[in-house]
């Protein structure tokens, strides 16, 4: 089986600014991985490259051995750091939309999660708060049986109580062969669920290690190490 994600000398430039430079990275299946870095370090650029919203300037990126395209989008479930659902839709419309386009979408699971969060499927997205919209988006994304989940700042806009629910949703809703890539700078909140971390700084990967190794070798938490590495 191919690694779920492989990057070789991957670079992305925006008019002479290096958003990512020379990234070599292999992600295995069945892990929860934190993509950690300060604002503007290249996290979103990296995730957009995985999802084919950007094209590499140099190097290659392979998902399950294939370049990003219609085929890889079938197996990657992506949560952007934007409210991306059309405002005129009802929650039920978005479920139908996902069911139509993604064969791996589990409608029952999504309906259950909505019920547990007491979200009425008849409500229009227009009428929901930003945090509630984010919850709906997360439910849609996590109701897919994908091989790779890319979650860009999934807990940025919600309150701490909802954060716990969301993290819980993430770790209980992926199968053991799937990999979850979570980008964030709120490390303390998600540290306990991570298997691996990737530190990214100025478009370069400075560390890729398992969380256990960090605790053993460095003798500190990921949060403490992050504060040390990225000290301003």
């Amino acid at each position: 089986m191919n690694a779920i994600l492989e990057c070789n000398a991957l670079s992305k430039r925006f008019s002479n600014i290096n958003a990512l430079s020379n990234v070599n990275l292999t992600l295995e299946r069945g892990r929860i991985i934190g993509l950690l870095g300060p604002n503007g370090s290249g996290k979103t650029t990296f995730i957009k490259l995985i999802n084919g919203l950007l094209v590499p300037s140099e190097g290659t990126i392979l998902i399950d051995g294939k370049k990003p395209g219609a085929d890889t989008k079938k197996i990657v479930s992506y949560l952007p750091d934007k409210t991306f659902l059309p405002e005129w839709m009802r929650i039920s419309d978005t479920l139908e939309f996902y069911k139509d386009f993604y064969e791996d979408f589990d409608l029952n699971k999504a309906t259950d999660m909505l019920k547990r969060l007491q979200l009425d499927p008849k409500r229009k997205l227009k009428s929901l708060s930003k945090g509630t919209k984010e919850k709906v988006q997360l439910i849609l994304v996590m109701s897919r049986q994908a091989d790779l989940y890319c979650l860009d700042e999934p807990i940025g806009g919600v309150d701490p109580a909802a954060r716990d629910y969301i993290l819980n949703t993430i770790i209980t809703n992926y199968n053991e062969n799937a990999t979850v890539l979570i980008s964030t700078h709120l490390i303390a909140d998600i540290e306990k669920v991570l298997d691996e971390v990737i530190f990214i700084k100025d478009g370069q990967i400075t560390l890729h290690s398992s969380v256990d190794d960090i605790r053993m070798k460095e003798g500190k938490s990921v949060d403490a190490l992050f504060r040390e590495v990225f000290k301003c």
Partner: protein
Amino acid sequence: MLAKLFKHELKATSKVLVPVFLIAFIFTIVNRIILGFDIFHGVFTFIPALTLVGYVVSLIAVVVVTFVVLIIRFYKNLTSEEGYLMFTLPAKVSQLINSKLLAALLWTVLSFLAVILSLLVMYLRLNDFASIIDALQRGWTEINRAFGAKTILFIIDVIIMAILSIISNILSIYVSIAIGQLFHGHRLLASFGAYIGINIALQMFLVIATAVTGLLLPENINDTALLPTIIFPCIIVFYIFLNLLYYWVTNYLFSYKLNLE
């Protein structure tokens, strides 16, 4: 995949357009009845005047709103935050463009048909049928006299040109939006700029092309048979080329230079 995309495209656009078409339909029926009965007299004559204004506005709305809704849909669905949803569907960029193009073509043709149908319903009397058939027959004879055996070809040419010109109108807007989204701020303004730029370039090209052909061709061409056999096919080839160019650029920009907000 194209069928699914097309279905959702129709669903999204119908939300606004079906009510607009429905309002025009109701105004047509109401006005037809009011015109037919002539029951308002004295101070009440303002009522038919008012409903007539409503009728005219609703017909204009069918064409204008359809046009505007289709542009906004394309712009918003692909270049705003909704683009994150659309461009990560397991579909090719070309399929996204095709589904929107097909829906836009369908709605444009429907809006024209709706206006024609409404005018017929509104102003047609039973005894008009004879004169309309008569006029059509006379028109047909005229075309036949001018083009003889080439009449069918003439009509096919005209239909193809009409469809290609609608497509080229739609695609020229798509390519303008695809260019506009390259910019970081004022993307809508940049799209307008691109549209104006494209049209100026096109006009200049046409002026030059007409002048050159005018110089090359012998003077005093009076053979109308040239229209369906040479001139229209040239225009068709030009439109096909233009549409392919618009399409290719749009597809390229959205595939390789996507710049979502």
